């Protein structure tokens, strides 16, 4: 493998990794605080991409399109909490998991009913790539990498640097104790679902900008997102972000060894191996026995 090919693979892997990190963060946040794996995360992303394309067509501005996508998807996530997931509080994780799979199908069916199966796309100026020591970097990739890095840091900052973040972490740690100390679940949950929606939306718009907007786009990213959430340590958002980036890089950099067809398999072999050696995940801690 020449150095240029390696560099290009690393760039592609980093972008893919940031995307998995965003989806993984949305999954991990939900698991940490609401305590179930949200299978509708992928379809939140799909919704965001379609909302972004529609808003861009309407306003003519990509920025307005992306902003509307974030707002609408945050609204969708909050609505799904209020209308669906709130009713499962205190139940085992199977019930909300199944409900989230149902919600995922519902969202996609409603979407395809109205907009069909044809592909859509964002309108972005297409520019030649910049060659950088043999590595080809597209201008849009720099934007996407920057935006997703800022989003990831912002979400983690809310979680670790603000009072509401501290309350969210308290609920994640021990819901009963949090309630006993007077933390109101309502504000925490509404903030949580807003963050989940926003995170999914940035991921969805980013995916749509890089590729094309089709109904299955988000669903296809769900498995890597779950893998990142598990690899990072279940319920550990920082771990999910690092694991997502690692998965993207490993997939891309394993290409010279296994070719383009089996790179996904390699990343999952790595996932299994990591979990065998370190069952709690990269940054997770072993679940204490109560």
């Amino acid at each position, binding site marked *: 493998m020449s150095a240029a*090919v390696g560099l*290009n*693979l690393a*760039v*592609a892997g980093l*972008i*893919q990794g940031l*995307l998995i990190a965003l989806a993984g963060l949305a999954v991990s946040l939900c698991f940490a605080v609401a305590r179930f794996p949200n299978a509708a995360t992928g379809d939140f992303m799909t919704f965001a991409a379609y909302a972004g394309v529609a808003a861009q067509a309407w306003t003519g501005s990509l920025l307005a399109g992306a902003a509307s996508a974030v707002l609408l998807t945050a609204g969708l996530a909050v609505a799904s909490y209020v209308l669906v997931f709130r009713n499962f509080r205190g139940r085992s994780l199977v019930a909300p998991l199944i409900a989230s799979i*149902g919600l995922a*199908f*519902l969202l996609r*069916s409603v979407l395809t009913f109205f907009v*069909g*199966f*044809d*592909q*859509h*796309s964002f309108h972005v100026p*297409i*520019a*030649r*790539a910049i060659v950088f020591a043999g590595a*080809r970097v*597209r201008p849009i990739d720099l934007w996407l990498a920057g935006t997703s890095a800022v989003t990831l840091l912002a979400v983690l900052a809310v979680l670790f640097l603000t009072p509401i973040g501290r309350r969210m972490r308290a609920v994640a740690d021990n819901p009963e104790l949090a309630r006993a100390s007077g933390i109101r679940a309502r504000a925490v949950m509404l903030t949580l679902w807003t963050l989940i929606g926003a995170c999914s939306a940035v991921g969805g718009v980013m*995916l749509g900008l*890089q*590729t*094309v907007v*089709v109904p*299955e*786009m988000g669903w*296809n990213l769900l498995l890597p997102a779950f893998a990142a959430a598990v690899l990072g340590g279940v319920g550990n958002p920082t771990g999910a972000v690092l694991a997502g980036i690692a998965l993207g890089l490993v997939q*891309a950099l394993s*290409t010279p060894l296994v*070719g*383009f*067809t089996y*790179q*996904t398999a390699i990343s999952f072999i790595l996932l299994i191996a990591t979990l065998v050696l370190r069952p709690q995940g990269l940054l997770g801690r072993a679940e204490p026995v109560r």
Partner: protein
Amino acid sequence: MPVRKWMLTRRVLGQAGAATALAAVVGRPARADRPYRIGALNPITGAGSTYGSGMQKTILFALEEVKRAGGVDGRPIEVYAEDTQTSPDAAVLAARKLIDANKVDAIIGTWSSSVSLAVLPITNEANCLLLHTSSAPALSTPAQNPKHLAWRFQAASHQIGDAYAAIAAHEKASRAAAMAFNNDVQIASVGFFRSAWEKAGGKLPNPVVYEPNRTSYAAELQQALSEKPDFLVVSGYVPDTSIILREAYEAGNTAKIVIPGWAMGPATVKALGAEVLEGLIVVDAVPDAGSAAFKTFDAAYRAATGNPGSSNIYAAMCYDMVAVLTLAMQKAGPSADNAAIAQVIPEVANPPGQAVSSFAEGRKLLQAGQKINYEGASGPIDFDERGDVTPVFGVSVFHDGKLEQRYLLK
């Protein structure tokens, strides 16, 4: 579960559609003979939905045309409509329903190889004819098609591969390369391209096989372009091809790119724009726009859908399926079974014989005891010994944001 509910609804819709279709096309069978039942099994929803409704409408108006011409002597025809959802699972359920509940004798108009490959064992077992529009080589091998009940109205992979090689020669390519979406059909067609190209003295590095649903194909492209080819075949589907074409442009690619017609749609043009697409070569089986059958089909298709017939090559194939099947039924006689009907399909479609462009024309000549050769809307419709048509390929080039047909490969 929402999935199950959806399927039930589809089924009910299919039955409702079938009932209306039945009333529209056949009315009440005039004779006491058992009617010949046709299942129109098309991709109404899913990835093939761009074509499916038009295909199904075409089958209905083509059968209506047969009826207006007097029908097949001694053989009333009924039609039942179903949706494959462009998914093998749903297609198998629908085919089972058509065969077990509706007792159809022929299933026509399946689209996409995975669907046709899934339906083929079922039709074979039930001695049912299958007229399809799919490319996979396995659909016409003696092992898969032992009773010669399956007939292909679309170009097969080897023909597409040969077409790529013919284009490479026509474009005076010196170094060729290929990329294929990871499935049987696409890998097979670039494989046939490679063998045809190497037989002609060219050289081709290993085709780059890529996975669906990647966010970027930049690395795959770099690999394919690593030996600086001047001719690149990209054999995939609409979403991945859009991404690859954009990334090839961004990477400053100078090789001529060739793609199959099914890998681009109106959305591709909208997404990529004229500059990225300039010089792109698109190859597809094309209808013979000058043929009489195409003109009849085109007029009826416009009336039924509001779109020109040239927008849906698969509907043209369905039109020809109905004509070939009914002419073969006419020739085989009212008591013929499917084996006998299948046997005479080449006799009504291939030369020698007087060229005919419709059921009405063919029926008269058959009644007079003459040989006929059906020349269809989607091409001349001549079958080889495996039951595959030999299509005419049109080669088009993007110029100033428009696709211009440049030459035909026969």
